């Protein structure tokens, strides 16, 4: 075990993946000698050479187009998009190409080796172009997997699993806690399962569900609720699609209540999908409406960021509303 922050855990996972498989190749804007603007790819060029870790020209659609081709050739590209806000120029290469590559060819060709890493989320005074949480934009795209880790230990295990998963994966890294989230991380190679939610705390009154940096607010809200004698079950969804319906259903059948939180705007966010699915499957078990605590339906603001964020206080209030419905 070693103490690592989330960035170091990502860097460590990339290092292990590259050491173990010479087909793993890391690239993106400023990813090479400099090691990325957040330094997630530090020292990888030194260790594995310019052929396997390099800067690309500044063109996201090209980065992912290139990555798709490289993956179809049998390599294992790990492409970085510098900020999730800048993933949209590559949207076509992701949803029309990567996601449909295997299906359209009847499995003659696939881009299963592809992983796209990108820092997402707010809370860093970044305004609307350094704060977005675009996971739901990808959630209506069969063929993609979307993964979000909540801490260093999860980040390493989930990233290694994503790189080795035989399907294209978008790996969203919670940049607000890149350095703030520090924890014990095994030094060796390990994987954590995709499409498997984790019950991080058991409880009986209400199920609280989140992913990524939002798990921190969930914890804080839980502590407030605990003082009121409310017993919360906390679940980290970890993989957004294909998501682990069974674990959430089992929990809600037990608690009778569900609250989902994410940073992205509420309308069209993935909480809507979860809510719809759970009310289909747990209708007779629900004691109150499934609650969503999410970003407002505006672009991500700057000066009013604190007000905008779905923080622990908003979650706590929503927990109480659900319990006292």
């Amino acid at each position, binding site marked *: 075990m070693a103490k690592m922050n989330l960035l170091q855990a990502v860097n460590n996972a990339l290092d292990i993946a590259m050491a173990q498989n010479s087909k793993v190749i890391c690239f993106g804007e400023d990813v090479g000698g400099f090691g990325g603007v957040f330094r997630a790819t530090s020292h990888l060029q030194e260790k594995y050479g310019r052929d396997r870790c390099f800067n690309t020209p500044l063109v996201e659609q090209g980065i992912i*187009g290139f990555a798709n081709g490289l993956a179809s050739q049998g390599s294992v590209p790990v492409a970085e998009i510098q900020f999730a806000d800048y993933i949209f120029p590559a949207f076509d290469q992701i949803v029309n190409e990567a996601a449909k590559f295997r299906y359209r060819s009847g499995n003659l060709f696939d881009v299963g080796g592809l992983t796209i890493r990108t820092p997402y989320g707010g809370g860093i005074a970044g305004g609307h172009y350094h704060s977005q949480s675009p996971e739901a934009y990808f959630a209506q795209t069969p063929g993609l997997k979307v993964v979000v880790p909540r801490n260093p230990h999860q980040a390493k295990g989930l990233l290694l699993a994503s790189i080795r998963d035989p399907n294209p994966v978008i790996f969203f890294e919670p940049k607000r806690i890149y350095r703030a989230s520090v924890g014990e991380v095994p030094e060796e190679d390990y994987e954590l399962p995709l499409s498997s939610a984790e019950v991080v705390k058991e409880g009986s009154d209400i199920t609280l569900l989140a992913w990524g940096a939002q798990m921190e607010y969930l914890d804080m809200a839980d502590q407030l609720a605990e003082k009121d004698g409310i017993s919360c079950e906390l679940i980290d969804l970890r993989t957004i699609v294909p998501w682990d319906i069974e674990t959430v259903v089992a929990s809600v059948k037990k608690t009778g209540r569900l609250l989902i939180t994410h940073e992205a705007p509420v309308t069209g966010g993935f909480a809507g999908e979860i809510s719809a699915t759970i009310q289909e499957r747990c209708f007779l078990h629900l004691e109150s409406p499934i609650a969503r605590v999410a970003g407002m339906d505006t672009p991500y603001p700057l000066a009013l960021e604190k007000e905008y964020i779905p923080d622990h206080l908003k979650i706590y209030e929503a927990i109480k509303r659900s319990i006292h419905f």
Partner: protein
Amino acid sequence: MKTGTKDRVVHKLNFIRGDELQIPTYKVLKQDGSPYKGATLPDLEQSTALRIYKAMVRTRVLDERMLAAQRQGRLSFYMQSTGEEATTVGFAAALDDEDMIMAQYREQGALVYRGFTLDEFMNQLFSNERDYGKGRQMPIHYGSSKLHYMTISSPLATQIPQATGYAYGQKLAGEGKCTVTVFGEGAASEGDFHAALNMASVLKVPVIFLCRNNGYAISTPSNEQFAADGIAPRALGYGMHTIRVDGNDTLAVYAATVEARRIAVEQNEPVLIESMSYRLAAHSSSDDPSGYRSKKEEEAWASKDPLLRMKQWLFLQKWWTEEEDSKLFDAERREVLATLKEAEKRPICKLDELITDVYDTPPTLLVEQLDQLKAHIRLYPDAYPKTSGDLDHG
């Protein structure tokens, strides 16, 4: 700092005009099949020359027959490549058969050359159970892993940066292979084109960009597609080797591709070839070109038929006769029709294929969705006649 620019300095204010940059067209054969004086002729063996010509003939016949079949309502859609066979067969012949081809959709000639059988074509065109693509894409979206021919994808130009990536992988693999990506002059307007060429130059990748400039993108003539002297000058803007060839001249296309491949593989440098031709047929079976161009223009180009030019050259070489030629056409027509009749009878794939290949294995939710669908079809077997009879054989 390196700005990438050289240091020549001037003190007079002088704009360079875009039309100062013009690129000539490389041409070997006259339309009567005889070479131009002093022309660089490629080194082409008789067997290869005949393989090329036969592939051109098969492509021509296939296109004719399948459009007719579409008109008869036997298949839903078709795209002809008529007039461009010199380009699509000629480039393929210049490659190693294991080089990767990532094409647009009008390059059936290359597939024919590599040996994709008529049966393989038909199974795709009829979306039957033997289609490698499992009946999931529209007709003409062929692919073959054994022939190193990437499955066609409709969104234009997406294959171009993918080719750069594929070729990068080939470079690291070090097996001396390259990738050729083919696209239209229309597709070259997409952002992906720019990304692909620039990345290929910077990353020094063995990829050949083959642009089929056939004058139109559906109804849009190339003078509404770009204002410059075609596509080739763009390659110079990326510091790339480039050449323009007469796309109706099989030998010119072949010779240029042989040399392009040498540069790509030996120097790990990308090359662009712009092949000038004309789309003699409609854009697709859904299109009627009389709405946007004249018969006269079409006829002018019809007189430059690439098959004719190649045939005349073969005659001059004494490698082929008029008699052999008409026999070949007859035989091809018969074979195409016979294969068509077999393929159109075959059933479509099983219902289970609806959910395979979305991921490497179907997620639980998708399996549930399939089960619900099966239960539903059992309730209404007559409403889903293609699958209801065979739900449990998946």
